[in-house]
């Protein structure tokens, strides 16, 4: 039975649900797993069996990678290398078994790079037919452009969690100075001249009250305080409520301090938080 074209189109629009990110990656993994099953020899599959196999593959990948990460962390490293990955592969393959599993931790004869697991993977790559993924996946390229344009001490370098109007971090001496001291002799960090120098300078600046103290690299946004009633009129100092208001407040009309915190994310947009004080009703 064939439906008319108009009915087909309406059905297509109705059947397009919003896809979660988890579902999206699961569907991609399912496509890859179904390609592997087809290469092995299967022609059809039950949906439940395919989804189960996809879930098993996902869990295997995550477990392998987590154990490799934990091996590297145990060796005081943040970046994993092939040795960590080999150890993780050994852990995952112990249930099935592989050549040399009994002498894994033999100090005399063990060499991780000669592992039989790696050899079997090498044989698999050389013998199995290459099955590229069915469709290309677009890669996000936003991060690369951000790293290239980073200016020292700017938003990109310090990260978005630090506002731009805060002063820069103090310079902790030159890096060459610290390197030389490591080569020629150990020295405690708190005793280094750069740290002592910074402390003294900081105290002197506070006492002298020099003109440079308090000057920020970038101007901070204006802050106003308003004491106001719920309906827009002014009242006493009881209760505080917070509303989101888009608009401007004129200084001439206000006799009491106004609490308005302006935070400009972009130059075009201004979100104003108005803290209002309401009268308590006895």
């Amino acid at each position, binding site marked *: 039975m064939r439906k008319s074209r108009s009915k087909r189109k309406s059905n297509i629009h109705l059947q397009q649900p919003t896809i979660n990110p988890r579902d999206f*990656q699961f569907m*991609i*993994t399912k496509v*890859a*797993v179904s*390609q*592997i*099953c087809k*290469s*092995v*020899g*299967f*022609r*059809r*599959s*039950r949906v*439940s*069996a*395919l989804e*189960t*196999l996809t879930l*098993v*593959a*996902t869990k*295997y*990948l*995550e477990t*392998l*990678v*987590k154990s*490799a*990460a934990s091996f590297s962390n145990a060796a005081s490293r*943040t*970046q*994993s*290398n*092939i040795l960590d*990955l080999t150890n993780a*592969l050994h852990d*995952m393959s112990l*249930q*099935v078994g592989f050549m040399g599993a009994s002498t894994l931790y033999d100090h005399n004869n063990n*060499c991780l*790079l*000669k592992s039989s697991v*790696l050899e*079997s*993977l*090498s044989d*698999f*790559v*050389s013998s*199995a037919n*290459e*099955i*590229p*993924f069915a469709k290309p*996946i677009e*890669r996000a390229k936003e991060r690369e452009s951000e790293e290239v344009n980073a200016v020292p001490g700017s938003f990109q370098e310090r990260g978005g969690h630090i506002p731009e109007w805060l002063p820069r971090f103090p310079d902790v001496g030159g890096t060459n100075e610290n390197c030389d001291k490591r080569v020629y002799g150990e020295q405690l960090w708190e005793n280094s001249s750069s740290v002592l120098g910074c402390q003294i300078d900081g105290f002197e600046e506070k006492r002298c009250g020099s003109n440079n103290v308090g000057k920020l690299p970038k101007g901070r946004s204006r802050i106003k305080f308003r004491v106001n009633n719920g309906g827009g009129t002014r009242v006493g100092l009881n209760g505080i409520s917070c509303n989101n208001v888009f608009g401007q407040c004129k200084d001439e009309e206000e006799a009491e301090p106004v609490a308005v915190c302006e935070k400009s994310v972009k130059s075009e947009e201004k979100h104003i938080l108005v803290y209002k004080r309401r009268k308590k009703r006895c």
Partner: protein
Amino acid sequence: MNHNPQSSDGKHDDDSALSDFLASLMDYAPTIPDELVEHYLAKSGFQCPDVRLIRLVAVATQKFVAEVASDALQHCKARQAAVVKDKREKQQKDKRLILTMDDLQSHCASIFIGVWK
């Protein structure tokens, strides 16, 4: 004394074999795409700038799935061979290789993965 040059030659051979394998990984396109593997690596806390290790993880997962699928295929064929009665059914057998939960369950249980319907 005599073992040392042999062991060093052996190490060189192993290193060269491993480096050849890692180089061949760059030419081999695994079925699981790099972007998907990178997503799971980031999710699990695996940090490595080397693309070859990402390919190695993808190949290891592909090999695992292929082993499970091939074992399930063996189970499926063994089950159908026991049921065959006529010649007609033999011809249709190749078209009816369907991956089912029963075949998966039997293999996953052997490698200590619990699968329930």
